[in-house]
């Protein structure tokens, strides 16, 4: 069922446009002078706690990441340092981009039994849907590193293997809230 949207009827003054233009310009002008004052003050080392913009000066300033944000994958470790992954291939199965490939091997300990001899994620294919994390029955794969910069000059460089994925295995510290507030 279509929803009827009541259109706001403009007054004559509004329809004349000129006054509205002036109001709009007044608003933007206000912002301009306020922000410009802060910028100039900061140029001379004053008003360090104020910010003339709402933007983040990447890469010096980083946006605080939401804790649930899906970032670069990592593989977690057991207490003895071995990967938690048991190569069940749930992630590989659920992956809509087919970017994960696992080769399983026989673990000498029959209580672990199965472990990944290879675990490759092709980040060039990954769509960061997070299904692998949802599917993992062992909490072996997570996407909470907070790392958003991973680039490479080659396609091969985008393939992260077991060692690369295990390198960030410790739980990252939560991002500190940025102290600088918008002006």
């Amino acid at each position, binding site marked *: 069922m279509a929803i009827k949207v009541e259109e706001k009827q403009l007054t004559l003054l509004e329809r004349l446009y*000129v006054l509205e*233009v002036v109001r*709009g*310009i007044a*608003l*933007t*002008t206000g*912002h*301009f002078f306020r*922000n*410009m004052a802060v*910028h*100039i003050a900061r*140029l001379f080392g004053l008003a360090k706690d104020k910010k*003339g*913009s*709402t*933007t983040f*000066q990447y890469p010096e300033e980083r946006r605080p990441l939401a804790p649930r944000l899906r970032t670069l994958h990592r593989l977690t470790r057991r207490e003895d340092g071995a990967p938690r992954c048991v190569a069940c291939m749930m992630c590989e199965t659920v992956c809509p981009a087919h970017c994960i490939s696992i080769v399983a091997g026989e673990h000498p300990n029959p209580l672990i039994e199965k472990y990944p001899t290879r675990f490759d994620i092709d980040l060039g294919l990954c769509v960061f849907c997070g299904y692998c994390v949802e599917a993992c029955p062992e909490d072996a794969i997570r996407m909470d590193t907070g790392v958003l910069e991973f680039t490479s000059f080659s396609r091969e460089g985008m393939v992260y293997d077991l060692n690369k994925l295990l390198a960030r295995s410790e739980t990252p510290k939560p991002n500190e809230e940025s102290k600088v507030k*918008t*002006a």
Partner: protein
Amino acid sequence: MEYAIDVGKVLFWFSSIMGLASILTWMERKQSAVMQDRIGANRADIFGFRILGLFHIIADSIKMFTKQDFVPAQGNRILHTVAPMIALFFALVGFAAVPFGGTYEIAGYTVSLQVLDLNVGLLFVFAMMSMGIYGFVLGGWASANNYALLGGLRASGQMISYEITMGATVIGTIMVYGTLSLQQMNIAQGELLFGWIPAWGILLQPLGCILFVTAALAETKRVPFDVPEGESEIIGYFVEYSGMRFGMFFLTDFIETVLAAVLTTTLFFGGWQVPYLYAGGFEFPWGGSFELPVVAVMLLQVGAFMAKVFTLCFIFLLIRWTLPRFRWDQLMRLGWTIMLPLSILNIVVTGVVLLIVGN
């Protein structure tokens, strides 16, 4: 010596315009950013100094000169090359007839601060502005790109529509001051109404001023009248340009903005006039005076002119970053069904008022 004075005037005027246009390229980005709570250009630095990103003007020009100069394979190489030059040339030439100061007697020489003192100066400026459109249309056509051609056509369509309004609007001003010479107009604006109000165009022709500014903005093809560019839809006549040839179009844009500001200043904001400042110094209507040497008067008046132009440029940029773009049909409707009748009405009303006042 007179040649030297002429050369000096040309050099001063040219470098002022180019300097202002260059600064506008930075201002455009920085101002828009600051008024939108962003930061804007701030990266280019020299030895760690950034001074609010002012060095981006230099960085930009280095970039423009070193970028690949691209000509489309199917395009017309000659016209493609010449088009931005045409646009830039006619945009610059228009300034010749605009005075940036009065006439001063300095050290025995009569210095008139105007490159070309024409008695039909206004017509000359309008003519040059109209010629500029060839640059855009040719550029659009020579690019062998449908979007570029469409941009060129839109530019000419818009130019025609708003040139008429512009011309009709100015007629009111001409009627009031009774001259086509821009210098004469400026001098006329130095008079006082009722003994104390400066006879600036904006006071004599308020409607004319609004219409003129609007039409002038349309002439510069900038938001809200940037349909020829429309970067979200067709990109415009310069879509196939790169490097310094794109730079010329880009600069033309800002020079036209300066031209619009200069004309508006000249016609409606008293040009180089400073209220109550005469050749000998200030003479206030409520009595009292302040003697000044001629050179000081000249500097004050030129400075006033520049300040007015700069302020208008700032306002033009404010408008450009505040208002949304018109659709093509809205643009045409505004031009033909609102602004043109209003400008004709302005002529009629001006005529009637002049008849009454004159009698």
